[in-house]
Each structure stands twice: as structure tokens, then as C-alpha cells.
């Protein structure tokens, strides 16, 4: 099996190689890139990095920024990932409004980053458990690449990899790019571990 493939790729690089890749690597071109964003600076940095290093070289690719919104019908609301606030029923409406406002801001910031680089992007907001919602969105959109910040959407300060990023790295139906924060790119200068 292996020798055949090796021989084939050297004989007809264009034709056979492309056929082989379509079956396993999911397509010969990168046409749709999905970037998960939240309110963190890190996810914006992930978006910028992806735009500068990957999307730039695929001018035909379409970009979708996805924001996962926590379901608004809960009476318990996660606060800064280390606490839970109980929301009395009377305050649910205003919670919803605040949440929608936050979502709007997150999406607007992300689209602005794209616009700064002359990249046209669409936005999608998904509700529910972030990791499952994004996973499903990626599948439905037939994404060719998913981009995340390394803390993902969990914002847990001490972990180097958020649980959402970890989940998506293994369960997403397409390749996943995990972008490290700028400090990590400084190649060994005071990387906090």
C-alpha cells in the first residue's frame, strides 16, 4: 500500500496527489475558515494571527467569525469562569439584554479586525455549550479550518489550554489551529509556565 502511494505521487504530482488528498485531508483548497472569538484579547490576537499568516495566502477563502453565547435561559450565570451568580427570575430579561450587547460588541470588534486587513468576513452567533455549539457549527459550515486562541473560551487563567480549545482540537471535523498569545511567540523570553 505505502510503496504504491509513494510511486504514484512522484509520477503524476498534480493529478493523483490531489485525488489522494481530497479523500483524507478534506479538500484540495482552503475555502472556508472559521475563527472562534469571545471577549478576550487573546481570541482577537488569534484572529489577527490567522489573518496575517494563513488567510492572507488564500485570497479565495471566506472567513466566518463565530461567537458562542451562553444560553440565556439559565438562572445561573458563569461569572469570570471561577464563580457562579444566581440570577433571580426578574433579572433574566436584563441579563439577556446585557448578553446580547456583549455579543454585539465581540462580533463588531472581530469584524473590524478583519476589515482592517481588507478581509470580508461573516459573523455567526451560536448558543449553548460553547464547545459543542462551535463543533456543530464547524461541521454544518463545512469549515476547512478552525482557529482558536489557546485559552479558548474558558478564560481560566492558570491553564495553558482552555477546556474548550482542548475539546475542539480533538472533536472538530476539520484541522484546528491553536494560536498562542504573543508572549509565547517571543521564542523563549520569559514564557510563563
Amino acid at each position, binding site marked *: 500500500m*505505502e510503496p504504491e502511494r509513494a510511486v504514484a505521487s512522484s509520477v503524476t*504530482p498534480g493529478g493523483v496527489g490531489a485525488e489522494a488528498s481530497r479523500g483524507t485531508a478534506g479538500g484540495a483548497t*482552503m475555502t472556508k475558515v472559521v475563527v472562534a472569538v469571545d471577549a478576550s484579547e487573546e481570541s482577537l490576537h488569534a484572529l489577527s494571527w490567522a489573518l496575517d*499568516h494563513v488567510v492572507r495566502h488564500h485570497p479565495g477563502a471566506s472567513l466566518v467569525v463565530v461567537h458562542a453565547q451562553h444560553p440565556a435561559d439559565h438562572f445561573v450565570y458563569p461569572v469570570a469562569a471561577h464563580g457562579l451568580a444566581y440570577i433571580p427570575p426578574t433579572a433574566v430579561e436584563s441579563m439577556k439584554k446585557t448578553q446580547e450587547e456583549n455579543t454585539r460588541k465581540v462580533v463588531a470588534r472581530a469584524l473590524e479586525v478583519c476589515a482592517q486587513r481588507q478581509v470580508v468576513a461573516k459573523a455567526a452567533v451560536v448558543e449553548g455549550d460553547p464547545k459543542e455549539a462551535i463543533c456543530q457549527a464547524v461541521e454544518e459550515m463545512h469549515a476547512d479550518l478552525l482557529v482558536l486562541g489557546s485559552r479558548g473560551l474558558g478564560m481560566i487563567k492558570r491553564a495553558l489550554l482552555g477546556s474548550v480549545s482542548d475539546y475542539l482540537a480533538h472533536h472538530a471535523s476539520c484541522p484546528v*489551529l491553536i*494560536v498562542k498569545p504573543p508572549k509565547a511567540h517571543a*521564542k523563549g*523570553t520569559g514564557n510563563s509556565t
Partner: protein
Amino acid sequence: MAETNAAPAPAAAAAEEEDCSSRKMVVVVGVDDSDHSYSALEWAVRHVAAAADAELVVVHGKPSASSVVTFGSPGAGDVVRFVEADLRKRAEDVVDKARRLCIANSVHGLIEVIEDEPRYVLCNAVEKHGADLLVVGSHGYGAIKRAFLGSVSDYCTHHALCSVMIVKQNKPKK
């Protein structure tokens, strides 16, 4: 580790900040002798290295005979020789396939084989070459298998100093 890199690092970091557009991206891809790893390399070569005209470094962590064979019997010495020869042959096959793939896609790639555990080999290669991106395949193990067998992609995602791309073999699209 930090000390030896201290001198070139600030210059490299400064260069990276300003020269992002003109400096070539450095991409390290980890390969072993599995099919999914080859697919990951294919994906990286096609969509990243070729598209971005990046500098590609293909790194293979060759297992050593001692990590595969445990000594315990009188005939162990001979076994080690055979195992060593087999491992070397496999590493050569990996290198060969990688080289052909690069040629087929008109990508210039540096191919390295280092004898050590893959996780360390990949993270060290990232540091050594000042990589912007590390690409690894994924076995697609479940959480329990990953806990027992260890996962190179997990380790690299946590410890590599650059962004990491995990390329799985796709499930068939609906």
C-alpha cells in the same frame, strides 16, 4: 534553555514584529510512519507551505531500539540489532515519502530525523528553527487512550512556543 536563546531572541522577536510581511514563515511539521501523519504533512505542504511560500522543516522523531525492546533474555543483543535495522529502514521510508511530497508540491523542505521521543523532538525543533507554526497529525484517540498512551499533539499544543495546527483525517463530509 532560556539563557542560550536570550541573545538572538530579542532580535528575532523584533524582526518578527516589524517584518511580518516580508520574512518567510517557518513551519515545522512532525511526521511518523502512520497514514494520518502523512495526511497531516500533505495538508501542511499544500495549504500552508506552498500557499505561503514558507520555509518548511519536516521533523521525524525516530524511536530508539531501547525504547522498543526491553532487555531480559540472553538473545536480546541480536534482537536489538534487528530492531535497530528495522527502525532505521522505517525512518528512511518516512524521510523518502516526505521528500517526494515536497518535490511534488514544489516546496523546499528541510527534513530532519532525530532520535528521541517525538514530543520533545517537535518542541525542540520549534525552538531551534524559530518556527511560527507547528503542524501535527492526530491519532484521534479518545480521552482515555490519550491518558494512557500519551498524546504528542496534546503535549505539543501545551508546550510548543508557537501556534499549533492539529490536522486530523476528516470524517466524511455529509
